[in-house]
């Protein structure tokens, strides 16, 4: 019991993934600044933001469901931390997980988005409702290609639905990114990550220009701090999942530590560069993009995986 609480609160869970996620969020902002020829924020900026938001006044809207509004960010944080624990434990080789933990991870990764939606709808703000409806459509569009890519990975790893076995298979037979179907799957999952994180080509749920931060519009003070922490953690967890699925996981022996860290940073860098070089699309364009093109690519990836390419 004590071990599980330690896993949840300290090492791969809340504290560790929060700190690493905060660092990656700083990295994301710094790269954005460098792309735009600016200097960018200092290293401790995510910490300052978090502490400042924690100590500010928390306003809860009078109209709408107040209890649900207050509980939604906590739920989002729980979802993010539990998925961090389930993904990072096999990735660091501490614990091998159980059969079928990949399916549990698929469900857990959806909890933060769902909680933002619940919080937005509970706030009673019309702009938040627009944001929530867009987020809902976005979930409907990116879930199917995400699942199809996971099916191709399961096929490639010899019908294994356990994250640690997939990583061990790659360690023995070479990383999946080295094959044609792996490259195609990586492109699809990169787009799905972009939508899951709500970054620029697919940030219509919190379109700053048109609906004033959308789903997070009514969050303030502590609740917004928790939303931000959940976002930091997701910025670490999703690239870590990609590293586990395509880049043969992490290895912590000698010089390999550097290589493992570089893999996560590389995926975050790709996500940031996509974010900085593309405009926001409309929600119908995003749905068409995922339902037609990304699904097509994912199915091609599955067919190639069946033929063993």
């Amino acid at each position, binding site marked *: 019991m004590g071990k599980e609480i330690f896993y949840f609160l300290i090492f791969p869970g809340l504290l560790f993934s929060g700190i690493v996620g905060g660092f990656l969020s700083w990295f994301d902002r710094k790269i954005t600044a460098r792309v735009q020829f600016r200097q960018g924020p200092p290293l401790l900026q995510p910490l300052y933001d978090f502490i400042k938001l924690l*100590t*500010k006044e928390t306003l809860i809207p009078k109209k709408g469901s107040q209890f649900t509004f207050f509980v939604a960010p906590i739920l989002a944080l729980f979802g993010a931390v539990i998925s961090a624990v389930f993904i990072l434990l096999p990735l660091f080789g501490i614990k091998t997980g159980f059969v079928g933990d990949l399916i549990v991870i698929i469900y857990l990764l959806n909890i933060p988005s769902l909680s933002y939606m619940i919080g937005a709808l509970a706030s009673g703000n019309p702009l938040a409702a627009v944001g929530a409806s867009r987020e809902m459509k976005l979930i409907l569009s990116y879930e199917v290609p995400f699942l199809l890519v996971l099916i191709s990975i399961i096929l490639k790893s010899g019908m294994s639905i356990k994250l640690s076995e997939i990583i061990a298979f790659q360690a023995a037979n070479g990383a999946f990114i080295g094959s044609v179907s792996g490259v195609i799957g990586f492109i699809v999952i990169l787009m799905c990550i972009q939508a899951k994180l709500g970054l620029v080509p697919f940030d219509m749920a919190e379109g700053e220009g048109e609906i004033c*931060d959308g789903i997070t*519009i009514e969050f303030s003070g502590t609740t917004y701090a928790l939303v931000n922490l959940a976002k930091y953690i997701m910025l670490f967890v999703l690239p870590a999942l990609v590293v586990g699925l395509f880049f043969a996981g992490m290895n912590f022996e000698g010089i390999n530590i550097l290589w493992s860290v570089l893999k996560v940073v590389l995926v975050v860098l790709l996500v940031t560069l996509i974010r900085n070089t593309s405009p926001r699309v409309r929600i119908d364009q995003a749905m068409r993009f995922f339902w037609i093109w990304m699904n097509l690519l994912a199915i091609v990836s599955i067919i190639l995986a069946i033929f063993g390419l």
Partner: protein
Amino acid sequence: MGFKEKCFKKSLWVFHLSAGSCNNCDIEILDCLTPRYDIERFGMKLVGSIRHADVLLVTGVVTKKLLPRIKEVYDQAPKPIVVVAIGVCSCTGGMFKDCYTFKGPLDKVIPVDAYVPGCPPKPEAMLAGIMKLLNK
């Protein structure tokens, strides 16, 4: 200076409210985000919702139409909040002080912490104003 206060000063999120301005000050505010001035070095960023804001920048003449809205936006903001009057219109009224829609300078409506005069003020002037306020 406590750690809490330091965090507040290091991460000011700015909300920008136009109280009937001619858009000149608004354009100059957006200039602060450009590579030449880059307010993100100081941890500031422009946010879309007043619920996230720490600084409320008010530009323009306080008109009769916008008076209740300014009060409402100020009430909606989570405290502590710093109010900065940008441009001579919101500081004193400027050339519109005898206009029939003019409802007093901004400090008659909500408490103001800093005044940045100018028509429009330079981005350097805005940065200097906020820095003076923070070092007070």
